[in-house]
């Protein structure tokens, strides 16, 4: 059986800069085209937003697309939903497509919630009878029951988004295309959204999911596509996320007043990839001052890569070490010794220098190091508290 979603060697070209859309510009461009013929390659001002990207998603599976801003994620979704058409390549989607790209796009502020549910339902391809049948469920899921006959312009932005998501969630699609909708609503609503997506997967819906919430991608998706105009990686989510985080390296500001470099080593001074909870590690940092700095703080942070959760953040005032003045061209080495008392997951280290007087960052190195913790006890959480259980039967 052909996969529900096929993206086959897709290229998409866009134009940069201001578009000329007055009739005055039409005649010269028509003449140009007649003289030179329709251009095939890249003209000036044009660029590839998506370059030669391929993937497939079978029924009942989810694909996560991650990448930095401007990597072509939203463009890919718009190609899937037929809003845009590829410049070359093919993009096929089988069955009914539910798109949660801009869930409230069809809402009109002057209409009531009830009127908008029917309008938005029709925009998403539901018949009136279908909307009518699911109307109560939609309103319940969104939790806007008391306001359903109020004009949408009186809604809070959260209510607006919840109602939009709720309509889409009741579409019963074959393919679901989701763009960063988890950022709406409160924690409880987000939890319901995630549960709903798992339910869709069990029902055999193919899902394409774009999010900056890497933990959600890791939880929901069977494969991950790392996109930066081109396909950087396609496959196992954990590996994909680590590829993505590594690709962000070099984020340190080389123009700043201070330059930091760092290396992560284990207790024997060797390189680190995968560790066990409690292993001793050292981040060896070198600080080079390019102008004189005074009274600064050296910070050491641990961040979980998948969701950017700040696990640890410690500040060491330079004055504690008697090095608070650093002249132009001066340098320091700093060894951060720590224990990886962490549960299973991907982590990154960060270090930065903070000027106390001006309250500004002098330099920020992230990631300063990357490592993964492997163990098989925990199911979630972040801190390894080395818990153990002792179990005895009660004799009766």
């Amino acid at each position: 059986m052909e996969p529900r979603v096929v993206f086959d060697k897709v290229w998409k070209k866009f134009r940069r800069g201001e578009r000329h859309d007055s009739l005055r510009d039409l005649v010269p461009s028509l003449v140009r085209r007649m003289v030179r013929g329709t251009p095939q390659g890249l003209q000036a001002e044009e660029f590839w937003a998506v370059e030669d990207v391929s993937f497939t998603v079978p029924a009942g599976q989810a694909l996560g697309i991650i990448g930095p801003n401007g990597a072509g994620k939203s463009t890919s979704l718009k190609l899937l939903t037929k809003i845009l058409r590829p410049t070359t390549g093919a993009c096929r989607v089988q069955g009914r497509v539910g798109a949660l790209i801009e869930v409230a796009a069809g809402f009109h502020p002057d209409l009531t919630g009830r009127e908008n549910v029917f309008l938005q339902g029709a925009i998403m391809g539901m018949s009136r009878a279908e909307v009518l049948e699911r109307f109560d469920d939609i309103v319940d899921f969104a939790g806007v029951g008391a306001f359903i006959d109020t004009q949408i312009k009186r809604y809070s932005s959260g209510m607006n988004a919840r109602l939009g998501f709720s309509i889409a969630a009741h579409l019963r699609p074959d393919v679901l295309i989701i763009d960063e909708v988890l950022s709406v609503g409160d924690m409880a609503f987000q939890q319901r959204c995630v549960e709903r997506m798992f339910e869709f997967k069990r029902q055999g819906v193919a899902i394409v999911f774009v999010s900056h919430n890497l933990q959600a991608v890791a939880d929901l998706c069977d494969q991950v596509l790392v996109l930066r105009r081109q396909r950087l990686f396609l496959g196992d989510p954990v590996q994909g996320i680590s590829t993505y985080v590594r690709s962000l390296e070099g984020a340190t500001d080389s123009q700043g007043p201070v330059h930091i470099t760092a290396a992560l080593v284990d207790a024997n001074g060797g390189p680190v990839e995968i560790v066990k909870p409690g292993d001793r590690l050292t981040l060896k940092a070198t600080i080079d001052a390019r102008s004189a700095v005074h009274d600064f703080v050296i910070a050491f942070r641990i961040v979980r890569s998948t969701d950017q959760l700040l696990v640890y953040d410690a500040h060491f005032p330079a004055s504690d070490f008697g090095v608070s003045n650093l002249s132009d061209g001066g340098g320091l080495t700093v060894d951060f010794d720590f224990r990886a008392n962490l549960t299973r997951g991907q982590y990154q280290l960060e270090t930065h220098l903070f000027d106390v007087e001006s309250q500004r960052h002098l330099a920020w190195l992230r990631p300063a190091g990357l490592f993964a913790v492997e163990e098989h006890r925990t199911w979630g959480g972040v801190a390894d508290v080395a818990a153990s259980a002792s179990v005895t039967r009660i004799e009766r």
Partner: protein
Amino acid sequence: MSEPTMAGDVAEMFREQIEYRELLAQMTKRDLLLRYKQTIMGVGWAVFMPLLNTAVFSVIFVRVAPLDTGVPYPLFAFCGLWAWNFLASSLRFSVNSLTGNTSLVTKVYFPREIFPFSSVAVCLVDFAVGSIVLIGLMAYYGVWPGVSIVALPAVLLVHVLFTAAVALLLAMANLFYRDVKYLFEVMLTVWMFATSVVYPTDLIGGRLGAVLGLNPMTPIIDAYRAVLLRGEWPFTPAFIIAAGASVVLLCVSWFTFHRAEYTFAENI
């Protein structure tokens, strides 16, 4: 992907319209609801403008420069203005229908024809409301249609097809070139006086009259007067040519629109 074929595209055009027929109804309902909510007079605007214009032109062509039109002049003018108004307001509405719904065009996929089509549908509702006033005026002047009234649906069909064809072209043109909207406003006024709306254009004659004979709106409006006011059959050669031209124009403009609609999201 196979190269798009003409037959494939035509099949897709119709399949999509059938698939999204409820959306057309919902979008039409949306626009009607909005007008009803946002303005005090609601559909009253649909009859107010042609009535006011009828009064103005009646003063001109009854008192200042009397004109023999074969039927009471206010009836002649209202019938023309009422039919013209359907075209004019449909086009005014559709010229902005794509550019006024930017968020829908760039964020949700559905056949974009829905926008100009629903604009025409909204104006069709106004047109029906206006017909009540026309019936009132006919009763006042004691003018009754004959058996040829059975041809009215055919006249209406040609009128709607022609309006939809121009609506598609204007909506699309304004998306690519924003000055179309302003140019169109000017052209619309000229077009009205080039059509037998408030006076019969065959009075113009000469070379200008021959050029104006190419305007398909004149035979359409004359056909309304024939079936409603004069008890005549509308199927003059000019009307039949206009009907054929409307069908051809609709096919061409719809097909062009369909081919272009994939570029709407990035050009809007």
